[in-house]
């Protein structure tokens, strides 16, 4: 009789441990998938930039520096190695892109150009998608980390490494991008 009770308890504990372990694996995979979704959106941003630059190039002779800065930041971001490096370079790309979009506002003939409007829409949508993909990643990674570190699931989490969260990496990103609007566009 005592043996049966003992066996039942062991089986119950085994099932319980299995459930916890499977939850950890599920969360880890969701976290990894969340990370890949960010990459998908970053890739989309890299693909869109040459289009935007080519469309506005003709009208923006005054802003050659801005355009070069965008293309340079793009190639640096595409050749980044490792998540930390990528996060920093993508942040830089994001801020020069923001500057380009703000400067475009100064050119009435660009603002009314349908192609530019479409591209701006695509680009701001991509920026939103990157932001939302990071937000979703951070939420699911936080859930994974909590499951990994709280008792009793922490007993089984030996083989799981902590997921890094996305944070604003440098102060330049935290600040609102400053745009020099003093230069008047050609009439």
């Amino acid at each position: 009789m005592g043996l049966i009770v003992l066996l039942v308890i062991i089986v119950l504990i085994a099932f319980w441990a299995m459930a916890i372990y499977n939850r950890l694996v599920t969360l880890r995979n969701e976290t990894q998938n969340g990370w890949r979704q960010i990459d998908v959106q970053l890739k989309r941003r890299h693909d869109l930039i040459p289009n935007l630059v080519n469309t506005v190039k003709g009208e923006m002779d005054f802003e050659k520096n801005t355009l070069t800065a965008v293309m340079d930041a793009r190639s640096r971001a595409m050749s980044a190695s490792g998540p930390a490096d990528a996060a920093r370079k993508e942040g830089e790309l994001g801020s020069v892109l923001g500057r380009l979009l703000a400067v475009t506002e100064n050119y009435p003939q660009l603002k009314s150009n349908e192609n530019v409007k479409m591209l701006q829409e695509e680009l701001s949508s991509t920026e939103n998608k990157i932001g939302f993909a990071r937000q979703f990643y951070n939420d699911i990674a936080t859930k994974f980390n909590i499951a990994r570190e709280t008792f009793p699931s922490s007993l089984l989490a030996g083989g799981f490494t902590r997921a890094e969260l996305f944070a604003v990496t440098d102060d330049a990103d935290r600040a609102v991008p400053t745009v020099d609007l003093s230069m008047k566009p050609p009439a």
Partner: protein
Amino acid sequence: MNLLEQEAFNRRRTWEVMAAFVVFLVLIGAGLDIFVVGAFPVATLGALAVGGGSALLTYRTGDRMILASSHAQPVDELLAASPGEDDQLRYRQLQNVVEEVAIASGLPAPRAFVIPDDDPNAFATGRDPAHASIAVTAGLLRSLNREELQGVVAHEMGHVRNFDIRLMMIVSALVGAVVLIADWAGRSLRYGSFGRGRRGKDAGAAMLIIVAIWIVAVVLAPIAAQLMALCVSRQREYLADASSAELTRNPLALASALEKIDEATAPTTAIKKGSAALCIADPNERPVNEREGGWSNLWATHPPMAKRIAALQAMAYQSGPGSGSSGAAARG
């Protein structure tokens, strides 16, 4: 009530509604068996089969029926038809915003539809997040800016994620089946039961009372089912507003969208009465939705707009001016 509780509540309510539906079908079927057919399980099984079949059919095709009845057109088809430049930008923006909000919620992107109606309104439908659709009116696309549109689409995404759309689909499928069966039972009663009831003189009076009670039940049940559908739909609007704030971290944009939607007082004629509970704002603009308590609590499909806007503004106040859109775990 938080979002997880709402999802659990929706699951529980779904089972309750389905159980009530089966009990109701058995009641009607058994009544027909006793008073009309005389052989017990025949009409009972018939009622279960017909009712279940019609409910299943509505559940599988209901979203397409609702979209078709409001003349909604898929936005990718509208884009393929190369519309004017302004419309092209608006349609593309809708597509993008739906994708953005889907990414924020971690769910597959629902299909986006546009309803040719000038009154700003929107609804979500479907049986689960993988088979969901979000429809907005052309008036909504014209009157809202990008952030406001994002708030409204995120509100609809909240309905999708909380499984509100499934519960509404099941409730409307079952209500439809109940009306069908009750109508069918009512007809056969008229043509059959009374002659038979008068023949047996001993049990005549008692039988008549049972028949009377049964008729009342048959007539009242569809109304009760409708009321049940209304009761569950109001609190979910507050929760979908909260979901929108959680997804976009921008409750003020939805608040200003709601203000604009509220200002447009014309009814959304393209959206039929049956799908009113699914909309972001009551398409019929009935005054009952501007009050709370007593009678209004029974009949309103939506909470008062002023209360929803105030709740959203309070959320913005809580999260503070400095909270960015990619904040780690700050939930609104």
